[in-house]
């Protein structure tokens, strides 16, 4: 005869997890990982970008497991990332080696190499396409055969790697403020916690991992009135970058090629005033930089705005305050702390009750 501890929590969790599985499969339809990889490009790209883990397969798995819930998919992938040893850093990549799929400039109409629209929703009419309800495999195949035929013919005429950078043009004209070449080894923000004030390399890392919505919102705030910044997209590129890692002999020639990653890169031009000696001012351009995994154009542009705001902003606006921006845009951190409010707070609340009651008693005296 003895008292036994209540086991309510364990059973409640088991039942809840069963319920979750039920919700995922009760309609008796299964989504293949390869279907997600093939058809949910936008989501896969966003999940990889916010997770800082480049794997379309694992992102698709996370999407399947989380029933398409973005914050949950990123959470799964980030947690998985923690279990992987980090053995190498890739060599620094110069982005002019990119195999370009899309490249536009809002600054110059005639950019050397030309504007390349590539795949974009920008010029589609956002009308629901009811034909997609009955899309057939046969139609799909016909369309593909014809398109690929045209593409092969066109591809022979153009070379889309090693395109010149728009920014080089401004540099030649001396319209860019001088930026000293910084070859300092960057601090890896996932291996060392950031300390304020930060370096630009740290800021760029946090921004590129930032939640798409959060980065976009703060970038929007900065151009809408809380940041006094008016950027022009100098160049936006989407394409693949080859990555290599060094070998033991540290001989660049013998680096190992480990694959390509698709990225979106943005260089925004932001006019800034430079005070001159005789009380006059001159205008020069400063670059805001954004880069992220996959095709994530709004996020990359917003990142370039925030990069410039944090680098040169006077700190008057919250979008120029690095602690405000960098400590709040992370998907896993913000959603985790908000969601912890669902946990019981009986002890702290009891403590608060005690304090409130004592004060009330005091003031009644």
């Amino acid at each position, binding site marked *: *005869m*003895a*008292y036994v*501890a*209540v*086991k*309510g*929590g*364990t059973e*409640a*969790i088991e039942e809840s997890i069963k319920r979750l599985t039920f919700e995922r499969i009760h309609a008796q339809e299964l989504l293949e990982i390869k279907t997600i990889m093939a058809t949910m490009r936008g989501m896969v790209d966003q999940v990889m970008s916010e997770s800082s883990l480049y794997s379309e*397969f694992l992102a698709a798995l996370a999407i399947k497991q989380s029933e398409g819930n973005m914050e949950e998919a990123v*959470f799964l992938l*980030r*947690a998985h*990332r*923690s*279990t*992987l*040893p*980090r053995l190498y850093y890739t060599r620094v990549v110069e982005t002019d080696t990119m195999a370009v799929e899309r490249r536009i400039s809002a600054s110059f109409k005639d950019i050397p190499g030309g504007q390349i629209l590539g795949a974009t929703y920008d010029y589609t009419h956002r009308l629901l396409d009811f034909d997609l309800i009955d899309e057939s495999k046969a139609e799909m195949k016909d369309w593909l055969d014809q398109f690929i035929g045209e593409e092969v013919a066109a591809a022979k005429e153009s070379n889309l790697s090693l395109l010149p950078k728009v920014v080089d043009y401004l540099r030649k004209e001396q319209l860019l403020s001088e930026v000293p070449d910084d070859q300092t080894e960057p601090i890896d923000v*996932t*291996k*060392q*916690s950031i*300390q*304020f*004030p930060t370096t630009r390399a740290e800021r760029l890392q946090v921004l590129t991992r930032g939640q798409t919505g959060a980065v976009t919102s703060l970038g929007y705030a900065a151009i809408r009135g809380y940041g006094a910044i008016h950027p022009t997209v100098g160049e936006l590129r989407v394409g693949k970058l080859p990555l290599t890692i060094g070998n033991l002999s540290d001989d660049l020639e013998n680096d190992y090629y480990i694959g390509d990653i698709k990225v979106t890169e943005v260089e925004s031009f932001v006019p800034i005033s430079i005070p001159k000696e005789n009380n006059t001012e001159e205008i020069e351009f400063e670059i805001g930089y954004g880069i992220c995994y996959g095709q994530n154009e709004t996020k990359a542009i917003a990142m370039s705005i925030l990069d410039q705001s944090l680098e040169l902003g006077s700190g008057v606006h919250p979008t120029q305050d690095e*602690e405000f921006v960098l*400590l709040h845009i992370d998907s*896993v*951190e913000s*959603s*985790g*702390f*908000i*969601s*912890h409010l669902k*946990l*019981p*707070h*009986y*002890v*702290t609340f*009891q*403590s*608060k*009750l*005690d*304090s409130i009651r*004592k*004060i009330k008693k*005091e*003031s009644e005296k």
Partner: protein
Amino acid sequence: MQLKTHFALFDEGSKKEIRRAILKAVAIPGYQVPFASREMPIARGWGTGGLQLTLSIIGKQDVLKVIDQGADESVNAVNIQKLVNKTTGVATTIETGEATIIQSRHRIPEVPLTEKQIMVLQVPIPEPLRWVEPSEYKTKKLHAENDYSGAWLMLFEQIMKYGKTATNADHPVLVHDRYVMAPSPIPRFDNTKMHQSEALILLGAGREKKVYAVPPYTNVTSLAFDDHPFEVESFDGKHCHLCQATNVFMDELVNQDTGETYYQCNDTSYCLAELNEHEHVLEVAVEHAR
């Protein structure tokens, strides 16, 4: 593609790195050591700091106890305990005395801890000056300059406003006469248990990426003025309706039918032990009667 989880989830490099941060924290009591907090399989704000400390120090011989809000059976405690057990296979317990590592949210057990135990506390906001200074850069300087006037001023302002200090849980403490520390969100009631604790107390904040510690036999004093001494939550005249205990932290419960308020030990394993102790006494008494 089947992946097997490594012992205690992390790769060895990560665990070593976290242990180094812990050693530094032990060497400088109350000082917040920044560390490369990993993303975890549980959410930020749900105990990832504590979990990382537990996973980096745990060995196969350890016995783990996890508490949330005083209870072992709270769903979050069960979940964390399940995860550690799943990735390490170590034994778990609800008995405070049996545990070698106790990970907890919000409470230090009622039973005094021993030299053989490590108390790991999950911390949401490690910065005791955060409420008076929002900037991390500035608070770091204030700590360096031993400038805690902000914390004192906060208490002083409360006295001016309410006639007494009005801190809730997480009442700031001074550790080893140097660093002012946030004692995690433990109730004021538990602050005193940190003073000269026999067990090592580790505090981990995952989202804020900080580790700090109270080594065994260290002085920990709650900030207070001479004329307004530190007061803990009071349960005067109250007792646990199950085990009759007094002088423990209690949950306030309401009888739905009568509307009456009654109390119960917040530390459920303590309550259970007390109940079983009385049971034993009862049995012994019966034995004697025969």
